[in-house]
């Protein structure tokens, strides 16, 4: 084995696209493996970069275990959960393209939740809580809010996602907001009125866009088309009638 080969096995070369005041600045980074066979995750790379050559690198993370949902970044243009995505030679690590970038790999997330502000679980008090929820309800509440599903969503793309000071809500929805609304529909504790309201909200957020869309993809594998979009579309048709 040549010396070069040994050295190659010790390092992994990636590009981290940092971001400052509206500009992307690609930075080459050589990750030093801690042992030959290490297959580092994207988060390992970012942590080592911060530890060495980029001490002020900004990125989000929390649990390191695919639970908190805050570490999503784009790897080679596709949304990935950084703490559990293995990185390969020459990969590009960049902020999610679907939300406005604040600094480096940090995006502004809260407009997504604001979209549903005042629109879920009103007056839920007083109902009998001792009822079992369906498997589908539990499938939807396994969502970790990673926002990977925003990628390639035509409905979300209708929003202007430039970074601006206002905390204005996005007008159009996305798979996550539809999921939260469908969870109300599936919740055995919701009243019929609440369920209808949830469907109406989905329509207001632009549910009709889903009609001509091949469907969305969830970062942890929730069946968004089958369990969220299709049922909402069907329910909205019923309400119209």
């Amino acid at each position, binding site marked *: 084995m040549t010396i070069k080969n040994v050295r190659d096995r010790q390092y992994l070369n990636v590009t981290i696209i940092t971001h400052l005041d509206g500009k992307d600045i690609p930075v080459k980074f050589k990750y030093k493996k801690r042992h030959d066979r290490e297959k580092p995750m994207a988060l390992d790379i970012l942590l080592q970069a911060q530890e060495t050559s980029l001490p002020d690198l900004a990125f989000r993370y929390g649990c390191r275990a695919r639970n908190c949902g805050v570490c999503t970044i784009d790897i080679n243009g596709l949304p990935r959960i950084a703490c559990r995505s293995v990185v390969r030679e020459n990969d590009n690590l960049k902020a999610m393209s679907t939300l406005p970038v604040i600094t480096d790999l940090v995006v502004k997330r809260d407009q997504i939740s604001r979209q549903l502000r005042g629109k879920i*679980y009103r007056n839920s008090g007083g109902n009998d809580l001792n009822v079992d929820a369906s498997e589908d309800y539990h499938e939807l509440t396994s969502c970790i809010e990673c926002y990977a599903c925003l990628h390639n969503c035509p409905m979300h793309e209708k929003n202007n996602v430039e970074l601006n000071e206002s905390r204005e809500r996005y007008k159009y929805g996305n798979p996550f907001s539809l999921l939260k609304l469908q969870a109300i529909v599936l919740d055995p504790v919701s009243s019929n009125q609440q369920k209808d309201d949830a469907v109406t909200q989905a329509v207001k957020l632009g549910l009709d866009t889903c009609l001509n869309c091949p469907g969305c993809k969830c970062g942890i594998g929730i069946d968004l088309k089958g369990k969220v979009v299709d049922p909402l579309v069907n329910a909205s048709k019923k309400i119209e009638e």
Partner: protein
Amino acid sequence: MRINLVWKEYDVLVVGSGGAGSNAAETASDMGASVLLVTKDPLSASDTKISEGIATVRGSGSEDDSENALSENLQLAGGDLPDINITSAFAKDSQKAYDKVRANGLRPKISAITNNPDPLPLPMGGHTKRRSIGHKNSGVAFGHANWNSIVKDTKIDYKEDCWLIDVITETNKDDTKSVVGALIYDAQCGEILAVVCASVVVASGGLSTIYFPKTDTMRGNTGDSYAIAARAGAELVDMEQIQFLPFCLTSPPAFEGLLGGEPVTASYLGVLRDKNKKVILDGVYLRTRAECSAAIMKAVEDGRGTKNGGAYLDMTANKRAPKSGVYFMNFLKGSLPSAYNNVRQAMSKSESQCDDLWEVRPSAHYMMGGIRVDENCRSIGGSNGLRNRGISGLFAAGQAMGGLFGANRLGSTSLTEGAVFGQRAGKSAALHAQKSVINLLNKKLFIEKAKRVHSLIGQKGHLHASKIKLTVQKKCWENLGPIRDKRRLTNTKLFIRKTKKQLKNINISNRTKWNQALIEYLELENMLDTAELMAIAALERDGSLGGHVRSDCPNISLFSKPYSTVARFFGNDAHVTRLQRKQTDFKKLIKFKFEEQKKFLGAKFLRLMPMRLKDNILEKRYKKIMNIQKSSITVQPGSVEAAIGDQKIL
């Protein structure tokens, strides 16, 4: 460099959007208070969201589960350090508080027999009753409910990406102190928020990040709660008591510190061994987390630790048993599936199949001490625990508060703690705000404090906060970690003093929006203040007790007179005193000790029996557990199976 100071006025400021913060905000808002909730992580991203999702609800398993029984379990486990008023409040409110979380969408499995949520088949360690309820999707299910509680109507204002910097107090004529507001770094907008409010609820979680990467908790646990409260003049109790989980992973880096197993999953024949394969602890399944952690760290101390500074967890005897071995593997996978999932990904096949030993090492998990409060979450102080000796208008809930657990935390109690005391804190905060008027002349107090932040932005220096953080974490692990002695604790104090002096040489860019260096700086400062208070509390407790292990002193007996440590700042100096606690009745203590010893003897006896005999006994035992397990809950919380979506990873 100047950064905009933006003024806001509210009745109540809630800091944190985990279980404690969400419950506090909702309750305060329901009582008519105007509420601002700020959180440094995105809404509801917190320890609460990443937890195993098992919650204590008194009476869920049997009708004879009295308030006294639960309160007593906490007292005994906590070595009589817990405040009885606080454990009683916990026992009193657990059902009510849990139902409020359910109203926001948490849906446990309902038993067909009792028509109530169904607890796990066996009582968790230290609980004398079945009362721990598991949930599909584990903590994520709590995360959704908390998220819903904030977003559901437009009453609660919330802001993400906001770091609480300091609580601002004024000193009254009678020398008491009251809250007038807080300063917050809004990284998203690049502003400093000056929030004028009479009540601040500190629900900003724990401090385990001072041991990173030897922790399984969220990155944000940099001790902000404790440091900020202490800088405002509040007292902290039991700061030497941190819970380490004994069986966490040591490698690869992506998994370092994460949970592998618990004492109970080591099962009947599991033992701990040192690097020479000599047994260092048996009857592991009956031991507390603290006992296992101490055994591992003592071996490491004596130079008998494994490569990565841990010990071996040997479960091969469980596996080898011809008949019961199969049951054991099912038990292991079924009881803690998310932990087992970590093991499967991080270890070799023969290890994850328990044909080989697991290398394990303790990880920081939970701070049992915290801000000194009464049962209504109001800051108190002095030897009699008076409110006028605390900070009027300062409230704490969840991991941030102290007094509930003392020297040991029982499993599944923290999610309930967040709900019970979050709600109590919200109520107290709203009531306090109703009675208070804030004198706006105090604006200059805010401006004074803000000056410091102005001067930090653009500070020139050759050091980086993110790098110093790593040194601090390493030092804390070595000197303030799961094993301690006087020399190391004194070193820690000196090290902290020295590092504090370096803060002025940290380089911070002059950007206002999401300035990572500023964030790291603020967190580093909190880590240092917290570690300093922990170190003096740990020096004061000159004996091992619960989560605090001193290799240079004997154990503190359960029968000696119990006291808590109380740490606080006077100006820049950290001080510690003792606070006498009430002792449990001697008869009860003796019974508790006796039962414990009986169990250990039984476990040892079983382990040393001939294989054929013990295999038969074990087979019966496993069958019994598995049967109840089947009839009540098939999918265990925290599992891949529970996170249905997780089975089809992209």
